[in-house]
């Protein structure tokens, strides 16, 4: 019961390896690996299924597939072309990129002002923004949709000569969902960036002021360059939320040709709920972008989350 130094399990410590401790180590590793397995198996099953031909899926479980490998790219071909997921992929990008850039830019300006500029009501307004962080979006959908369906009427401008006859329905274009995602993302974005800006050393701003720099110059030359890590985290989060969003796209985008991937998946479940090969490939297409972003930029996730950044 006295193993050599090299083979000592980690954490065995100075007191040598007590049998109970060894058992504890065994339980520790077994439970961790067990938990990891439970978390891994669902996605793994989807991934393997997405490469199997429909006949194989019907004949045997994916867990037997490694023993008798028969893989195909056919499911992906079918989903991307016949089911229009290629088009949806482009739509998802067209929705996500402006819906990410806009709130990050607006929030950087506002966050800087809330942290370092003085204006009346600043702190009260910021408290309201914290409250908005938690408000359920469900409480806004109906009025916002009414605004999108008929912006001229919503603002009571029907009587205005030219405006009254224009068709400005925002549900038929991407503009509506860009605005909605921007507005919905702002409370969290402002909250995160304001707190980051507020944490920068005061002397930086004061000495720049003394040197005669304007607020805009301080924002561009000092605050922005120093906050690149925070802005990077925020950009990634906002990108993921918008890319993964189903509800807002479902409600605010009523042109089927402009569907993002999430809505296409939902429609696929409705009409081909038992076509496992299509569902698996389709779901994996939507997952591909977030997975690549996550594995490439993992450290920004942890940094962003632990910076007190918890979205309500």
């Amino acid at each position, binding site marked *: 019961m006295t193993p050599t130094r090299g083979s000592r399990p980690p954490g065995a410590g100075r007191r040598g390896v007590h049998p109970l401790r060894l058992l504890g180590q065994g339980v520790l590793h077994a439970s961790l690996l067990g938990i990891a397995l439970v978390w891994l198996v669902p996605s793994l099953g989807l991934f393997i299924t997405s490469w199997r031909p429909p006949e194989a899926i019907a004949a045997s479980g994916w867990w037997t597939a490694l023993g008798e490998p028969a893989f195909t790219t056919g499911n992906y071909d079918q989903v991307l072309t016949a089911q229009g997921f290629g088009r949806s992929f482009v739509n998802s990008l067209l929705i996500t990129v402006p819906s990410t850039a806009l709130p990050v830019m607006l929030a950087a300006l506002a966050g800087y002002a809330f942290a370092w500029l*003085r204006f009346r009501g600043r702190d009260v307004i910021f408290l309201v923004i914290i409250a908005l962080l938690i408000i359920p979006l469900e409480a806004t959908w109906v009025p916002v949709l009414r605004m999108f369906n008929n912006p001229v009427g919503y603002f009571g401008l029907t009587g205005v000569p030219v405006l009254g006859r224009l068709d400005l329905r925002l549900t038929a274009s991407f503009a509506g969902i860009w605005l909605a995602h921007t507005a919905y993302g702002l409370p969290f974005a402002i909250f995160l960036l304001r707190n980051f800006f507020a944490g920068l050393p005061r002397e930086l701003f004061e000495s720049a002021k003394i040197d005669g720099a304007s607020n805009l110059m301080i924002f561009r030359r000092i605050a922005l360059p120093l906050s690149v890590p925070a802005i990077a985290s925020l950009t990634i989060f906002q990108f993921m939320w918008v890319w993964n969003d189903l509800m807002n796209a479902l409600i605010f985008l009523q042109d089927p040709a402009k569907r993002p991937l999430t809505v296409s998946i939902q429609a696929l479940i409705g009409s081909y709920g038992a076509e496992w090969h299509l569902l698996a490939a389709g779901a994996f297409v939507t997952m591909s972008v977030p997975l690549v972003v*996550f594995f490439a930029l993992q450290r920004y996730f942890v940094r962003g989350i632990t910076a007190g950044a918890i979205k309500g």
Partner: protein
Amino acid sequence: MSRRERTWTSWLYVLPALLLLALFLVLPTLQTIWLSLHGGTGFSPTEYVGLQNYVQLLSNDSFFLNLSKWPPSGAMVNSFLWLVLFTSGTVGLGLLIAILADRVRYESIVKAVIFVPMVISATATSVIFRFVYSPDPTIGVVNAVLTRLVPGLEPVPWLGRVNLVNLALIGAGIWIWTGLAMTVLSAAYKSLDREVLEAASVDGASPWQTFWRITLPMMAAPIGVVSITMVINGLKMLDLVLVMTQGGPRNASRTIAFSMFWEVFNNSRAGYGSAVAVILLVLVAPIVVFQVRRFRAEQAGR
């Protein structure tokens, strides 16, 4: 003169953001409260009914709240189930994994595996769990394992049983959100004062005692923050339910947020659905007050 000028230009930084917040969050929320006092079908109800929608929801809508039978059922009850099981599941498992993984060399791999579901859309997760829970012997891995372990067991349609569907959905929710709890709690655990923990173990405290008497009280604040996040997420649960079960079978898996969506966009009862949204709003309001207070206390301590 220059000072006043500066104050005036400060508004330019916040104005675009404030305009959007007013237009998309503040005003619509107030309008929804107003709408909730109206009845009828269609998207722009005009008939004023006072509190009729609320009375109907809380006393006479068995899909929303049914207290006449035991056990009670309906969307309110299901949301309460979400709130309790989802919050304790994510926070409990997140804490467990954070502490266990701290002791092994492959910590970063385990944590990445647990976190991955956080970056996948709820829509994709719904597809994943339609596979996992399927009663089809070549699709559903849960049933494949169970039927092999328990001979003679018939495959269970987890999403098709009134008394199992909520637990199955909450399980999928926990699978998604545990990664977030784990990440926050792991960072908090690593920042604990190691000397206190070691002193306890030198003084002869068992790991179990150390955990309950020292580690847990020291982590009360981050656990509280994560729990609040999870309570909010649990209360707002919608997309997972919509994609996986559409509130079924026999409306057994409706949540409050799902009821709002369904009444407005499926049943065309905008006023009735708005009342559901207001109930949701009222339920999260205490959390809003709590968060604002917490922030003010933080600022005062700065």
